[in-house]
C-alpha cells in the first residue's frame, strides 16, 4: 500500500487568466511534516486554496492525488470528508452562528457522508472539552459566534481546535504563525505536534522560520514563481532566515 497522502504532479493553475502555479511537484507521505516557504506572491496561498478546492482557480495542467484519488473534480466539502483540512490564514467571521453549533454541523456532515449516525450530544461535548484543552481555548470562545470579535491569536487557536475536532489526514496550515505572539505560537505549535501521528501529514506554509522551531519539519521546500525551486531539511529554513530569499534567487540564477 502506498504511503503517499498527497501527490502533486506538474501542477499548473491560473486565476482570471493569470498563471500562478507553473509546474509544481510535491509528494507528502504519512507521518511527514513539510514546510513550504517563499517570498510574497510566490503562490503559497494559491497552493493551499487549490488543495482545499476553491473554485476560483482553474487547473490547466497536471494533477493532485489525495489518498490515491485524483481530486480535481471534488468539491471542498468532499475533500474535507476525505480528510483534508485547511487552517485559514484569515479565518472568516460568521456572526450569529455559535462555534459549537458550527462544529457539530461540520462533524455531522462528515458522519453523514461516511454513512454514520449523528454524533451523540454527550460524546460531542466530551470531545469538545478534550480538544479545546489542547489549544487552551476558553469556554467563552466555544459558545461565541464563529471567530466574531476573536483576537488574531484566538482565531488561529480556533483553527487548530477545529482541526483537532475533525482529525484530518492532511492538515495544511496557511500562515498560521502570522499575527501570533510568542506564547500563542508555542500553544498553537504544541497543539499541532500533539495531533501529529504516523497516519497523518502536515503542510506548513510560512514566510518565517520561527514556527519551524516549534514544529520541526522533515522537509523544507522553497516556492518561487509557482514552482518548487529548492528542497532541503530544516537547515534550509535557517539558511533562508539568515540570507533572505534574494540569496536563493542569486544562487539559482532565477
Amino acid at each position, binding site marked *: 500500500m502506498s504511503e503517499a497522502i498527497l501527490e502533486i504532479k506538474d501542477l499548473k493553475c491560473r486565476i482570471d487568466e493569470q498563471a500562478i502555479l507553473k509546474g509544481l511537484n510535491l509528494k507528502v507521505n504519512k507521518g511527514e511534516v513539510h514546510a513550504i516557504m517563499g517570498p510574497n506572491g510566490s503562490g503559497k496561498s494559491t497552493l493551499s486554496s487549490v488543495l*482545499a*478546492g*476553491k*473554485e476560483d482557480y482553474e487547473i490547466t495542467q497536471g494533477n493532485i492525488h489525495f489518498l490515491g484519488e485524483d481530486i480535481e473534480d471534488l*468539491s*471542498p*466539502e468532499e*475533500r*474535507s*470528508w476525505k480528510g*483534508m*483540512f*485547511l487552517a*485559514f490564514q484569515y*479565518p*472568516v467571521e*460568521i*456572526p*450569529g*452562528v455559535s462555534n459549537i453549533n*458550527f462544529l457539530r*454541523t*461540520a*462533524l455531522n*456532515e*462528515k458522519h453523514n*457522508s461516511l454513512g454514520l449516525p449523528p454524533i451523540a450530544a454527550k460524546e460531542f461535548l466530551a470531545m469538545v472539552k478534550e480538544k479545546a484543552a489542547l489549544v487552551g481555548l476558553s469556554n467563552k470562545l466555544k459558545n461565541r*459566534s464563529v471567530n466574531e470579535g476573536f483576537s488574531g491569536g484566538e482565531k488561529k487557536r480556533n483553527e487548530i481546535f*477545529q482541526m483537532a475536532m*475533525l482529525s484530518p489526514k492532511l492538515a495544511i496550515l496557511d500562515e498560521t504563525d502570522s499575527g501570533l505572539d510568542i506564547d500563542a505560537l508555542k500553544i498553537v505549535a504544541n497543539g499541532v505536534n500533539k495531533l501529529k501521528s504516523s497516519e497523518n501529514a502536515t503542510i506548513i506554509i510560512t514566510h518565517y522560520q520561527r514556527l519551524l522551531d516549534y514544529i520541526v519539519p522533515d522537509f523544507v521546500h522553497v516556492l518561487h514563481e509557482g514552482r518548487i525551486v529548492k528542497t532541503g531539511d530544516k537547515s534550509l529554513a535557517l539558511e533562508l532566515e539568515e540570507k533572505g530569499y534574494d540569496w536563493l534567487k542569486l544562487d539559482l540564477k532565477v
Partner: protein
Amino acid sequence: MLLGDIKKNNSKMNLGELKLDPIFRENSENALSKINALPFPNRRQEKWKYIKLSKFKKTKFHNDSKFALKTLKELNIPIGSENLIVIENGRLNKKLSNFSSIEGLELTNFSELKSDSLSYVNQYNEDYDHYFSYLNQYFLNDGLLIKISRNTKISSVLKIVNLSTSNNIFINSRLNVYMEEGATLKLNQFYASTNQFSNGVINQICEYDLKKSASLEVNKFQRLNNNNNLCSEFVKQEQSSSFIMNTFSLSGSLLRNDICVSVNGIDCRTELNGVFSPSSGEYMDQNTRVDHVFPDCKSYENYKGIVKSGGTGVFNGKVVVHKDAQRIEAFQKNNNVLLDDSAVVFSKPELEIYADDVKCSHGSTTGQFDEEALFYLRSRGMSRTKAIQMLIVGFINEVISKVEEQDYNSFILENILDY
C-alpha cells in the same frame, strides 16, 4: 364579488347572518362611499408601488365562512393546545379553540359586544386607512375584543390562529387588544392555511391600544402557503408603555403588513422586528410607520429579508419625529440577502425629523452571501446548501432569538430553510 368593482356588484353579502351592532352598519355605509371614491390600489400609487395586485381585482371572491379544518394537527404548527383561539374564515371556531377563562382577561366577539364596549373599537387613525381597510369595514365578518384589566400581568401566552380554509375566500376580520393601565400581555398570532386551499385572502385590521405603563408583545407568524394576507395594524401607545412586534413572514402568495404606531406619551419603547423570506412567485411587503409625538421615547426597527430565487421582498419603513418630540432615540435597520439573480428586494427606510435634539439613524443593505465565508464552511465539510443555511441562521439570529419559545424557533427555521 369582484374587489375592484364593489359598487356594481354590491351584493350586500357583507353583514350576512351576523347581528353586529348598528355602529358597524354605519361604518360599513361610510366605507362603501370611500371605496367607490378610491381607485383600486395599483403600482402608480406610492403606497402600492412594488406589489402586483391586479390578480386580486380579477379574482371572483366569496365570503362564505364555513368551517373546513378537522384538526389543528393538519397545520403542522407548534401551537400547543392551551390558551388557543381559532378564527377560521373570519369566525370563531369554538370546537378547535381551547380557552378557559383567565382572570383579568376579557374576551368578546364583536357580535356579542355590548354598547358600553363599543368605544374600544374603531378608534384607529383614519389617516392611514387604505382601500383594503375600507373593504374590511364594509365586509366585516366578525371581530374579537381582548381587554386586559388594570395592572394585570397575564402570565400565560395567548395564541390566536387565523385560518383561511376555502378557495377564493375573502376574509375580513378584526382584532382589538385593549390594555388598561399597567397591563401586560404576550400574544402569538398565527396566519395559516394548508396546501389544500389556495387564493384565499385574510384581510385583517388589528388595533393595539396601550394605556399608561402597559406592555404588549406580539409575535406574528404568517405561513399561508398559496394564500394571501393583508394586515393593517394600528398601535397607540400612552406614557411609559412598551410595544414589541416581531413579524415572521414565512410563506404566502402575497403578504402585506402595514404597521402604524402612534407614540402618544413620553417614556415609551417601541420595537418592530421582522424576517421575511419570499420564495418563487411570492411577494412580501413590510410597511412600518412610527410617529413620535412626545419626547423621551425610544424606537427600534430591525428587518431582515432573505429573498429566494424568484421572490420579491419590500421594506418600507418610516419614522417621523414631530416638532417638540425631543430626545428621541430611533434606529431603523433593514438588511437583505438575495439568494440568486432572480431575487428582488425594494428597501426604502425613511426618516423625517422636525425636532432638533434627537438621536436617529436608518440604514439598509442588500447583498449576497460572502463567497469566502461559504468556502470556509465548505472546507469544514458542509455542503453548499448546508453552508447557505448556516449563513441564513446567522443572518437572522438576532431577530429570531427574540422569540423565546424553542419550538417556534425551529418552526421559523424549518420554513425559511426549506427552499
